[in-house]
Each structure stands twice: as structure tokens, then as C-alpha cells.
């Protein structure tokens, strides 16, 4: 959906202050069923898949060079498994799973994105809107959990650093749901968000984006995503490359930065006259009123809290992620409400 800049900005502000709705057309979902569904996932996922009922785990799927090609949540709903997230359009994930399934486990895969759509709500009061529009049982969902509803499935996750919910419903019901959410959202000052608004939000919170920093053949340690892998697992696609990496070490990693002026992707970053890295992503942060981005910086300059760099002869400073103080950190659904937010 292409929005004008002011409209996109409105969406961003709603993500940061109230709640925004996005029709996420690039988010996909596979349902994996069968006696050995989790055995299969254990085989292909670098993370621990021993999940509680309703639990989700954020992970990556790696190629043989340990470069991620999928940014997914593995989810458990009773005895069913879901892979929810984003993967490269060039990848036929079901095919890849089949090729990497190991000893023909007993499972079947359904591509839910054929029949269902995903509506995402992000914002410090997204929980409250969902409780009103969908049901109060939403309030009991911990972060990274999923639940079956009469009308569909809901996943609590999100990449903006605010409360985030992905509602998966049959395509035929999409328009009704959008209408319902917009109507309930009036009193929440709900706005429609687009990819650009979500992108800026995820950048400010240092979330990984396959179409952004996923385009440079970087490995998990370079992406600061080692947490997506289990240190106790040694047999998964890409594990050998990961093992080599750990032995050899790595000498560059993504670092969060801020700068007052715009810069472009691939612009060199300098310390005095030495090149120390380059900009990989950048965007203007209305909250910080400056530009925020991720740079690939080499050792030993790759730390946060260094104020001495330059890009295009303008000052650049590395900071600890996240770049902003999310309002959601200070909102407690047990105590607060959008309608009493001025008092909070």
C-alpha cells in the first residue's frame, strides 16, 4: 500500500503513541501438523523448540553459510506447529523443509497464507484495542504467545518495540475485520500504518529486517542475532558454518548509530581518516528528531557509546539499542488504560 508521507507519518505516530493497524501482505505462515511436527522443527531450526502450549520463539533459518534466509517465529498450539514470519521470495520454504527434513518424519505442511491474511496491530495500547475488538482473553497473553480464537488465530509478537499483535483470519473476513478494528479504534486514535512506518519503528528498536540488513550475506554474530540460536544445538542447517565462525571469530558487527544529517546506504564511516565501516540502513526518527540507523563496523570500533565518527563529514555517534524509550515499557495493562493515559 503506498501512502503519502504525512499519512505514513501518522501511522508511525500511532505506532509510538496509541495503536496502528497494518494489513501485512508480506508476512507468511506455515502450519505443520503430524506426530513428528516438532521433531521436524527441531531438525531445521537453530533454536530450542521445546515450547509450552501457546509459546512462540523468534528464530532464523540459515543456509549452509549460516546466512539467514528466513526471519520466523516457531510457535506451538497444542500439537500443531506454526512458522510465522518473513522469508525471501526466492525461497520455496516447503521445498527447503522437505530437503532438510532428515529421516522422513511424519508431518504435513499447509501454507496458510493462501487462505488467510494477517492484520497487525502495534502500539502502547494495542492490547487494549484488541481486548475490546476481539475479547478480554487477549489480556492474558504473555509476549511471544499465540492463541486460537473462534474467528482466527492471534499471535502476540511485533517488531516495533511496542505491544504487537498479528491477527490471522480467513481472507473473506479481512474487510469485515478491518472495519471492526477501525471502528473500535476511533476512540484509540488508531491510524493505518504502512511498511515504511513499521520499518522506521523496527529500525529504531534494532529489529532485524530481511529486506534491509538481510541483504548483505551477514551471519548471526555480525547481525547481533546469536540469541536466535541455541548454544546447545549442534545439528541444524548452517550449524557447521556457525561452528567455524565461532572458532575463527568475526571482526565486524551491526551497531546502532545516530546522526543529525541524512546519509545513504553504503556511505563510508570514518574515524579521523580511517574507514571503520559503512551505513547499512538509515531513517529519520521523529521521536529523536535525528537520523537513526545500523552500521556495519569493524573491530575494535564496533562499540556503542563512541562519539567520534564521521559520515559525509558529519558527526556520527554509536549508541546502545534501542534508539528510543518505548512508551510500552511504561504501560501496564493491569493498571493503565488509553483513556487515563494523561494521568499515568
Amino acid at each position, binding site marked *: 500500500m503506498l501512502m503519502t508521507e504525512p499519512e505514513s507519518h501518522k501511522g508511525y505516530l500511532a505506532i509510538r503513541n496509541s495503536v496502528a493497524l497494518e494489513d501485512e501482505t508480506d508476512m507468511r505462515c506455515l502450519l505443520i501438523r503430524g506426530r513428528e511436527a516438532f521433531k521436524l522443527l527441531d531438525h531445521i531450526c537453530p533454536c*530450542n523448540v521445546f515450547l509450552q502450549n501457546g509459546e512462540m520463539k523468534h528464530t532464523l533459518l540459515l543456509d549452509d553459510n549460516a546466512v539467514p534466509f528466513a526471519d520466523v517465529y516457531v510457535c506451538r498450539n497444542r500439537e500443531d506447529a506454526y512458522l510465522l514470519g518473513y522469508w525471501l521470495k526466492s525461497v520455496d520454504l516447503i521445498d527447503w523443509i522437505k530437503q532438510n527434513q532428515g529421516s522422513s518424519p511424519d508431518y504435513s505442511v499447509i501454507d496458510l497464507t493462501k487462505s488467510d491474511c494477517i492484520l497487525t496491530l502495534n502500539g502502547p495500547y494495542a492490547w487494549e484495542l484488541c481486548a475490546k475488538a476481539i475479547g*478480554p*482473553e487477549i489480556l*492474558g497473553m504473555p509476549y511471544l504467545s499465540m492463541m486460537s480464537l473462534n474467528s482466527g488465530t492471534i499471535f502476540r509478537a511485533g517488531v516495533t518495540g511496542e505491544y504487537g499483535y498479528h491477527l490471522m483470519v480467513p481472507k473473506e473476513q479481512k474487510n469485515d475485520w478491518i472495519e471492526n478494528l477501525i471502528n473500535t479504534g476511533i476512540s484509540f486514535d488508531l491510524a493505518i500504518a504502512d511498511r515504511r512506518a513499521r520499518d522506521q519503528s523496527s529500525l529504531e528498536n534494532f529489529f532485524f529486517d530481511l529486506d534491509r540488513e538481510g541483504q548483505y550475506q551477514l551471519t548471526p554474530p555480525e547481525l547481533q542475532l546469536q540469541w536466535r540460536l541455541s548454544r546447545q544445538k549442534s545439528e541444524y542447517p548452517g550449524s557447521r558454518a556457525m561452528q567455524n565462525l565461532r572458532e575463527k571469530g568475526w571482526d565486524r558487527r551491526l551497531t546502532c548509530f545516530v546522526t543529525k544529517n541524512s546519509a545513504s546506504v553504503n556511505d563510508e564511516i570514518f574515524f579521523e581518516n580511517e574507514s571503520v565501516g559503512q551505513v547499512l540502513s538509515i531513517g529519520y526518527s521523529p521521536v529523536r528528531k535525528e537520523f537513526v540507523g545500523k552500521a556495519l563496523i569493524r573491530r575494535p570500533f564496533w562499540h556503542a557509546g563512541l562519539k567520534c565518527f564521521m559520515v559525509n563529514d558529519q558527526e556520527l555517534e554509536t549508541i546502545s539499542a534501542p534508539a528510543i524509550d518505548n512508551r510500552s515499557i511504561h504501560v501496564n495493562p*493491569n493498571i493503565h488504560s488509553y483513556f487515563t493515559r494523561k494521568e499515568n
Partner: protein
Amino acid sequence: MKVVITGLGAYCALGSCVKELWDAIEEGKCGIGPIKRFDTALFDTGIGGVIPGDDNSESDEKRLLSYALKAANEALNNAHISDNSIVSLVLGTSNGIMGRDINEISYNLADELNLGGFIITVSTACTSSSHAIGFAADLLHRGSARVVIAGGADLLTRDVFAGFHSLGLLSKTPCSPFSSSPGTTLGEGAAFLVMESEETSRHRGVHAQALFMGYGISADAFHDTRPDPGGSGISRAIINALGSSGLKPGDIDYINAHGTGTAANDSSEWRGIQSALSDHSNKLPISSSKSYYGHTQGAAGALEAITTITAMQHNVIPPTLNYTRPRPFSPVDPVAGTRPRPYNTRFALSTNSGFGGVNTALVFGRKDEAYKPLSTTQRSLSVVGYGLNLEEDYINRFIPYDDLRSTDMSAKLLAGVVAMILNDAGIEFRSDECDKIGLFVGQDHLSDESLKALDKSISERGIRHLSASAFTRLVINYPAGVCCRLFGFKGPVAAISAKPDSGMAALYLGADNLARRNDTDLMIIASVDDHKHGKDKSAGAVGLLLRAGDERSPIRLTGWSLSRKSDKGTEEALKMDDLKPGNTASGPLISSAGSPGLCALIDTIKNINHTDQNSFLIRSEKDLNYMGIDIIIEKKYQYANRPERKNRNT
């Protein structure tokens, strides 16, 4: 059989007897005040529901016993019991005397009162005395006991205060459940109910004060300390309680909630109540009495039951004190106020939840309520799996490290034997089948490792900075709670301690629960001991899996009973004598894993095909001063050696 409550006794911050307690409630008094018994200067708050006492040098042991004695004596007198030899005791305590066997308080109390019946201790954190009340009713239904005194006792100690404080759970002002300022206030005390069958009470010429209708227990299987935010555990406990009482949601007139005042508890509890009672929950008055006397831990279930019953007798319901503004998504009618509200209650629900993710719901009825108790058919029980685990790290083969990261030896030993049992029975971890599995564990003391970790943190860092993670492991039901989380067990869970054999006592109660109820079909009975106090025994866990209603299974559990030396002449005891003796709890064992009886039992099962004998009696009677526990297993038919089951859980 109708179970009635004929005596009440309470001793807490708000009163040294039920009358004092009730008068204070009627006058809107709050029993929460500054704590003087230990120094609270280092903490962010210094209030609690403490019982006033001048003797600060009294030992914890004496103090706890004196609380329990006062409340128990009152209850026995209230019930006009003249001969304590007919009375059994089921006592719930969260901490007992820290570092000692959890059942010590029960035997001390029984000695003081000269109780002649059975003595069982339940320790499931904050639901301990509500468990005790439920199990007391089970003993009566079974016919094992004539009169039972059931309840609980706990002290408010510096260490417990510091532990709750470190977890950020304490409120700076007296707790206001469901209301704006979150946090709880700890309390202490003792409370007991005398329970018997209606028939027994009539024979004794005593009137009922209330009816005990039924109960439900469930596990969250979510987290070791935080409740399942969706409240599904509480919901299950309530539904099971209604089921066992033969009541519908619409029959309940009032709920006395656990309502500790913390944001996490209150919101999940409300969601659980809504989930179980749906629309009816919006019409119900729901109050929490912790606002009067604080969170009395192991005594809470019984003390809140007494508050509920006394209110019913006066045709009122107790309010939630200290209530100012409602929190978003909290009960519609929290009975905010300072005086009890005139209200006619026929049936009341009392809920409690505890560390380890355990939930209980008790149902009480007005004394003159005419109702027909449900007739229960006893289901047959089979043994479909068993195991003995002596290796602490055995569980590491099946569960990822991160899920075991902050556990201790007892939890790992127990989890290991549970994994063994599930594999033996061909059940996949966290499967739909596991959802309903119950777990009763016999255990006498806390893990030495965790006690030492707590003490070390206090001496190294000071009381304010004690180890919060060690503190969360210091409830007897901690290993059971960990197992529920790891394997996804959401059925009834309990931790039981009784001499001579806690594991056998757990089997007695668990088998009874499984056979006479139908909220679950599967239950694991186990025992664990880290044996740090032991001489030559090594640590271990032992257990078995029972399935109800499986007619095809070759190994059945067909009898379970308790006996005292005075009972030699009873019918049940005679029946036992008729049988040929099987393995008894003696003989060389590598480790008894806390229960020689359960070890002997699984040993019997292991060798069952190698003998012509079909019935086996496993008896625990180490010392005639304690109760005897008899279990009968029968081999229905000879079967081929157990097929090598493909391990589904590697």
C-alpha cells in the same frame, strides 16, 4: 455422604479466636500494622498482618505451635469434641519451620492434642490449607477417618518477608486487592475446621456450621512463581470444584477470592473466574479478605474459609477493605467497603493460588441447605508406567538446558523420574494427554542446595539482597511445580508429607482422588529426596503412573488404606490380613528416594511376571506410632515382557 463443618478455630492478626476475628470484621478493623518482631528498616515497607506478642525471644518452633494449638483447640471445643483419639489431622503449611521436616509442626500439634487418628501434612505454598480441607473430606468419604481437623499455620518470618520483598510483591500500604495500588501484605496465623460426616455429627449430637460441598485443584504449567496470566489454571480448579459439588456456575452466590493484591495474581484470578463462570461472574460479589489480615500463606485457605463460613452464618458477605479505585479489568462487584454487606449466600466459592502454579477452589454451602450429594462410583486403577531415578542429570537427556537453568537437585531428580515414567508409558511430553495429568509428590523437606544458597546470599549480601531465585525454590511443592511446567501437567498437584512414608501417603491420597473423581484419568505419584541429611542413602526419585478406567491393563491398584494400631479390629485391616504378604518396605535398596514403600511397589511390579502370585500387599509401617499405609496391587493376567517402547521423547 454429606460432609459438614462442625467446628471453627482461628488465630491471626485480627483476632485470637473466631469471635474476635468476626467482631473486628464487623467493625471494619484492619489487622495490618508495623512489624516489630524483626527489623524492617532495610526494606521499602515494614507492615504485615502480625500477631501481637511480647515474647520476642520465643523460638519460631514454639511460636508456630502455639498459633496452631490455639486455633485447633478452639475448633475442637467449638465442635464439642471430648475425645481427641477419634480425630485425624490434615495440616497445611507453606514454610513450617524453615530447614526442618515440613511435617514436624503436625506431629508436635498432634502430640499436644493427643490426636488418635491419622496425621498428614500438605505443603503447596499458599494453597496448603485449602488442599488440607479437600483431602480431609476425601478421608471422610473413604471412611478412613471419623472426624478430621483440617487447616493450616504459618509464621511471618524475616526471611519470607525478605523473599517476597525481593520479588517486588509487597505493597507499601495495607494491600488493596483488585484496587489501584498493587502489591500484597504478608500475614501469619493458624486456622482449622473440624469436619465429619453429617451422620457422625448427628450421633455426637452436634450441629453443622456449614456444608463442605467439594473442591478442585489444578496446575498452571506456566511458570515457577508467576500465575498463568490467562487464568486457565484457576478456571480449571473452579470448574472441577463445581463438578465435584454437583453445582452449576449460576448456583454460586459469592466468591472469596485469593486476591493477594498483586497485579499478576488479581488479574489472572479475575480472568480465571470469568472463564469458568462466564456471564455469571459479572453478577457475582467477589471480595478478598486478605485486606483484613494479610496473606497468611499456608493458613490462608482455612482462614479465608472460616471468614466465608462465619459471614454466611451472619447472612452477610465480607467486604474488600482498603479499596479505592478499581483497576481496569477487575471484578465488577468487589464488595468495596468497610462493613459486611447483608447478603444471603447459599453456596460460596473460595479460591487460592500458590507458588509453583497450583490453584484450588473450595465450595461451601449454608448449613441448612438441602442437597443431595453426588454418588460416586469408584473407577478401577491400573499402573501403566513406573521409574526410579538416582541421577540428577538424567533429565538433561530430554529437556533443553535453558528450561532447567534455575532449578535445583530435587527438581531435577523428580523431573528425571517423571520423564522416565512418561517414556515407559509411551506418552509424549507436553502432549494433549499431559494436559490432564495430575502429580502427587511425597516430600519431607526442602532441597538442601537451595536452603544453603539462600543462607549464603544472606550472609554475603545482607537480608535485603537475598537470592530471589533461591527463595522461589523454597516451597515443598517446588519440584512438583517444575515438573508441571516442564511436561505440561495441568491436573491436580499436591506435595504431601507423612510418616512413615510420604510417597505411600501420596499414593493413598492420589489413588483415592483418581478413583473417586473424574477430572482426570492419569496421575503420577512420586517421591523425591535429596538425602542430604541421610547417612548412607543417596538422593533419588521414584514414581508410577496410574490410569483410571482402563479395563485392559494387566496391573491394577485395587486397594489403599490407612491404619492405626488402634484400628486392628476394623474391617479394612482384617481384609489386609487375609492376603498373602508381598514385598514389604525392607530389604536392601540403593536408595529409597524418599519412599521405601514406592520402591518396594515398583520392585514388585518389575518382578510380577516371575511369580504365580496374583495379589500383593505393600505395607508401610515403620513405627507403630505412626500410621500404617497399605497398598494392594493385583496382576490380572500374565503378559509378555514389556515391549521395548520407542522413546518418543529424546
